């Protein structure tokens, strides 16, 4: 079980920073990995793509990705794109 903490806006500028953070976390894809998004104030479509790719990688390796603590306006972006049905969420 591993938690990766993501804060600030996940916009086009911060995309690489977040990608690096995920890579540096050195998680084993077969594990349960939690993305703690309590302090993530914004997400753009490129951010969603990073999350989707990670979900695919983790799931195909037999692990589980959990997205934790999404703020309501950010959650709405997941809802609009249908990603609410794709991911596992935790309050």
């Amino acid at each position, binding site marked *: 079980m591993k938690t990766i903490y993501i804060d600030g806006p996940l*916009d*086009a*500028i911060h995309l690489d920073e977040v990608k690096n953070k995920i890579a540096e976390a050195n998680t084993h894809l077969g594990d349960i990995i939690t993305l703690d998004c309590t302090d993530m104030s*914004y997400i*753009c*479509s*490129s951010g*969603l*793509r990073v999350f*989707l*790719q990670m*979900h*695919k990688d983790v*799931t195909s390796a037999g692990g589980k990705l959990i997205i934790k603590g999404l703020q309501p*306006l950010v959650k*709405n*972006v997941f809802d*609009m*794109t*249908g*990603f609410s*049905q*794709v*991911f596992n969420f935790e309050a």
Partner: protein
Amino acid sequence: MEKQLTLVNKIEQIPQLAEFVEQICEELGLDVAMNFNLNLVLEEAVTNVIMYAFPQGEEHTFTLKAWTEGNKLVFELRDQGKPFNPIESAPEVDTTLSADEREIGGLGIFLIQKIMDEVSYQYEGQSNILTMVKVI
């Protein structure tokens, strides 16, 4: 209300966009949810221009105009990059598919169309013009 922002095709310009949207929302008394969604729409549209409209390594400017027409808030994004119709070019997004079936692309224009009430594209006088309207 009428405002204009001139941007350069560099991703570092994105924070300027957030400020621009915030000013408009403040002026028009729009709430944080509307501010968030408009910011998302404009970031998606502007990022597309920054990433794809011009040859790599070249610096170009493009403009974003905003104005109100009655109860409509209109944004017009205009660039002199290569002709590109983002509406026609977007792959169809099926939001009911599972993670494995979901494609990685096409989400930006999908969100723009989902949030805005009217989205149209025209190529005129060597300019790509993307017009996005929100009823407020």
